[in-house]
């Protein structure tokens, strides 16, 4: 009898599956899966929505209003696009070149004694040892920061830059830990992320600096690597539990 995984049963309980029929039928005949499914349902019941306090709108408006400056419309975007239109094909070529260099670089310079890495050869997690749970939080923060960098059309706002600054020291610690534990693939990805953070922390914000950062540091490729690390991290934590 094929049992369903916890993930499949969570999706079932959250009604995230298009094919609920086979699971429903299986749960009627398999007490093991039925127990697990009931445990998930109970968890969802325990964490059902609590009432939310109502904010005082007038008080909040008065507080906000004091901080509002007088705005003016942004200059036409059409002019900017025309002016920088030549750059898009060049940007595409440069990104493709960076991706190729990164991919080939990882394959060629990878030492043979390092542990297997799904990011490189697709054969399992980076490590099977228990990992620091806080790294999950750090990788989440890295993913969101890089997504912001990849999707911002102008200069990054102060909050994002402040976040980059605060992640810098934390990232250095994780690079060191990864190196010390022999996890060179993770160390390499986090080192690249550290370069992005350093650039963000030191360069003055201009409308082109984010765009240049994306090109020069291949933040899209780095984002993919971070996501893979995140998945490997989940996998290794699952193994350890």
């Amino acid at each position, binding site marked *: 009898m094929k049992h369903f995984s916890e993930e499949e049963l969570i999706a079932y309980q959250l009604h995230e599956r298009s094919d609920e029929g086979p699971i429903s039928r299986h749960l009627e005949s398999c007490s093991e899966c039925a127990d697990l499914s009931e445990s998930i349902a109970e968890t969802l019941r325990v964490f*059902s929505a609590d009432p939310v306090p109502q904010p005082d709108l007038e008080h909040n408006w008065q507080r906000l209003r004091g901080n509002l400056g007088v705005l003016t419309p942004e200059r036409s975007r059409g002019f900017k696009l025309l002016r920088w239109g030549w750059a898009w094909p060049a940007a595409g070529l440069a990104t493709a070149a960076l991706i190729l260099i990164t991919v080939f670089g990882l394959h060629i310079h990878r030492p043979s004694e390092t542990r297997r890495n799904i990011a490189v050869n697709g054969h399992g997690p980076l490590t099977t040892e228990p990992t620091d749970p806080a790294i999950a939080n750090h990788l989440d923060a890295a993913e969101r920061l890089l997504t912001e960098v990849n999707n911002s059309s102008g200069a990054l706002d102060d909050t994002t830059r402040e976040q980059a600054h*605060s992640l810098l020291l934390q990232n250095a610690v994780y690079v060191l830990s990864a190196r010390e534990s022999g996890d060179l693939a993770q160390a390499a990805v986090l080192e690249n992320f550290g370069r992005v953070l350093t650039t963000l922390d030191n360069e003055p914000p201009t409308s082109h600096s984010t765009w240049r950062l994306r090109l020069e540091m291949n933040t899209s490729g780095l984002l993919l690597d971070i996501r893979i690390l995140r998945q490997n991290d989940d996998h290794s934590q699952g193994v350890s539990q």
Partner: protein
Amino acid sequence: MSNRRMDKAETEAIRDVLAGDRDAYRLLMERHFCSVTRVAFRITGNEADAEEAAQEAFLRAYNKLPSFRQDSAFSTWIMRITMNTAINLVERRKRDLSYHAPRIADEPSTADHTVRIADSQASPEVNLLNREAVSLRQAAMAELTPMERTAFTLRHMEDVPMAEIAAALNITSNSARQAVFRAVSKLRRSLTPVAGGYR
């Protein structure tokens, strides 16, 4: 959250704000502040931080209004800003160990800046059980990363579709789905010792 396009009143309010009328922004705040605070509350877990995140989100939205492309609804846009602001606030709070906002606790304490939710109707036994349940839930939620907490609370408590959560968090649908699954799995394991062991 909704993907509906903005109605005429909101479009006009934005136009007026961009023409220099700050007070026109009040209409947008009146319409969306409650839902924004609600989402911020789900992410931050306390009222004071929820209002701070909502305030910050509205201020950031105001300052970014000149670059707001009105091809999406203001509600979707402000919700996206709110989620990011609230997550950043949670991360800042975690880093800033000296921060003591009022928090819910079993026993109120001035030194720890903790408060207790009053319930004059319940019996002492029910009060005790409620306090234990609240503590247990808070401890379990504290184990989640801000992204997991956001994705889980929005999907499960606010019934927001996965695609909208993904769009708001600027991640793929699959990443949002995985964050929700991880959250449920962690929460289940947090509760299991109380429920009597798990497989």
